[in-house]
């Protein structure tokens, strides 16, 4: 695998999502998507301690245009585009490896709360790419949460998984976010709080859903030798992996019949082989969690536990503070911030740098990020 340690993160930045959450609740509009991205970019630039002129590549998140963001940030780039969090990092590494760019800014901004983005209903976001989000509207199935609720119900039936088992994710992640001063939700919850919380789309409870909040995230990724010169603490991209399930996606076939397992297993083989390590070597797992159900699927899919054993693994080994496998240490999308996978990237960097404050996992060497958005099972392993 040519990309191994080809590039490293030299700078990270974020916006004040807790402060902005309070403001947006009062009806204020602190920024638009470009504004949040720009703020995060300025913070990442400061963190990297480099000049803007050193950046020659730019990838923006799905909510902004590459061209306009490049204009706003004042970047004359040689290469760039638009991608979600995990594909942005993959594309940056590939661009660096092929010589298309040397230092790439990854910039995400989203005003989804103040701008009233719809993730359910007739104008559901993402419908152009994911037909399943709107195709079943005549029967009232139009929220993304409902697709995961449908998946969870089949999974519960197949594996004997219970709502109480599912609740372990929300409880663990709130345990982490209670130690994250930036997190939008910092109050701990118990399993009883979880079970008592209302259903949105049964069997998913409110606490299984991600937040909807405004914010931005930026990372600066540099070619390895440049990264070593730029930074005293570069965080390397050790390996990448991806495997997609497209067949039957609109009728939810991969969700309902195999729970993304074959793609996650293939991706696991690719990413762990490329990094030369296995799941037992991972110190922190960051799992894309628009809904809590992503977490047990990834833990089984990537071999952190045997298939069918995840409820036991979460209960006995633990994924929260003090657990054997810390998962989503910032609180993730459920409790920290719904930055669509981007906040997981900067949390990975913080854990490896050793700058995660009270929630720092001791001697964190490797972090594994996984996302399975609509069957695109993707992974990044970060290391020192």
């Amino acid at each position, binding site marked *: 695998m040519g990309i191994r340690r080809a590039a490293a993160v030299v700078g990270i930045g974020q916006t004040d999502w807790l402060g902005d959450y309070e403001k947006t609740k009062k009806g204020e509009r602190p920024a638009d998507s470009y504004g949040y991205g720009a703020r995060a970019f300025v913070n990442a630039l400061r963190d990297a301690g480099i000049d803007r002129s050193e950046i020659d590549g730019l990838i923006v998140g799905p909510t902004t245009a590459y061209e306009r963001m490049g204009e706003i940030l004042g970047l004359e780039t040689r290469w760039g585009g638009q991608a979600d969090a995990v594909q942005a990092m993959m594309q940056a590494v590939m661009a660096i490896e092929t010589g298309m760019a040397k230092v790439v800014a990854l910039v995400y901004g989203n005003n989804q709360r103040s701008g009233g983005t719809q993730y*359910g*209903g*007739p104008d559901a976001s993402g419908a152009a790419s994911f*037909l399943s989000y*709107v*195709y*079943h*509207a*005549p*029967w*009232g*199935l*139009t*929220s993304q949460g*409902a697709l995961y*609720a*449908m*998946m969870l*119900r*089949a999974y519960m*039936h197949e594996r004997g998984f219970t709502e109480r088992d599912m609740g372990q994710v929300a409880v663990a992640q709130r345990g982490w976010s209670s130690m994250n001063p930036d997190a939008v939700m910092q109050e701990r919850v118990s399993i009883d709080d979880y079970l008592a919380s*209302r*259903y*949105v*789309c*049964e*069997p998913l409870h409110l606490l299984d859903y991600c937040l909807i909040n405004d914010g931005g995230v930026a990372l600066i990724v540099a070619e390895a030798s440049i990264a070593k010169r730029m930074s005293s603490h570069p965080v390397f991209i050790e390996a990448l992996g991806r495997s997609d399930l497209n*067949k*039957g996606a*609109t*009728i*939810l*076939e991969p969700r*309902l*019949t195999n729970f993304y397992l074959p793609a996650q297993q293939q991706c696991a083989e690719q990413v762990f082989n490329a990094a030369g390590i296995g799941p037992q070597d991972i110190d922190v797992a960051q799992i894309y969690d628009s809904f809590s159900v992503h977490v047990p699927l990834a833990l089984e899919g990537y071999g952190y536990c045997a298939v069918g054993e995840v409820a036991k693994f979460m209960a006995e080994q633990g994924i929260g503070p003090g657990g054997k496998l810390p998962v989503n240490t910032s609180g993730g999308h459920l409790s920290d911030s719904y930055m669509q996978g981007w906040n997981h990237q900067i949390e990975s960097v913080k854990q490896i740098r050793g700058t995660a404050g009270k929630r720092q996992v001791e001697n964190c060497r490797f972090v594994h990020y996984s996302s399975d958005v609509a069957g695109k099972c993707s992974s990044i392993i970060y290391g020192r």
Partner: protein
Amino acid sequence: MSTPSQTALPAMPKRVMGLYDKPFWDHIQQRKLSLQCCGKCNTFQYPPGPICSACTSEDLNWVELSGKATIISWVVFQRTYLPAYPAPYNVITVKLDEGPIFVSNLEGPTPEGSWIGARVSLVYAEMAEGQLLPRFKLA
């Protein structure tokens, strides 16, 4: 399930109506559940498309189905997203006897305990402006 007015039928939520979707809905208006079936490999497919996704053949024919199916998962919405669907309401996924998975609603009595594995059969619900919607009831 309560409705604001007993007389007005709910408006059909916006349908995806691409070139290949129209024959599906035209058949539904004739009270026929038909899907594309490949003339070369005999695979049924849903949603309809330009080629058979199983073998890439363009030899696709609309064939009427039995309307018999088995529930493979279900949810109950406790939040309203669409005027036609005031919460609470159910959505089911069924495996049609001919192969494809189909998303719909279960009308009438619901099973005790788990719904998964329950056998269902096709019914037609009438929506506003005489539009028909394929749903299922326990067989």
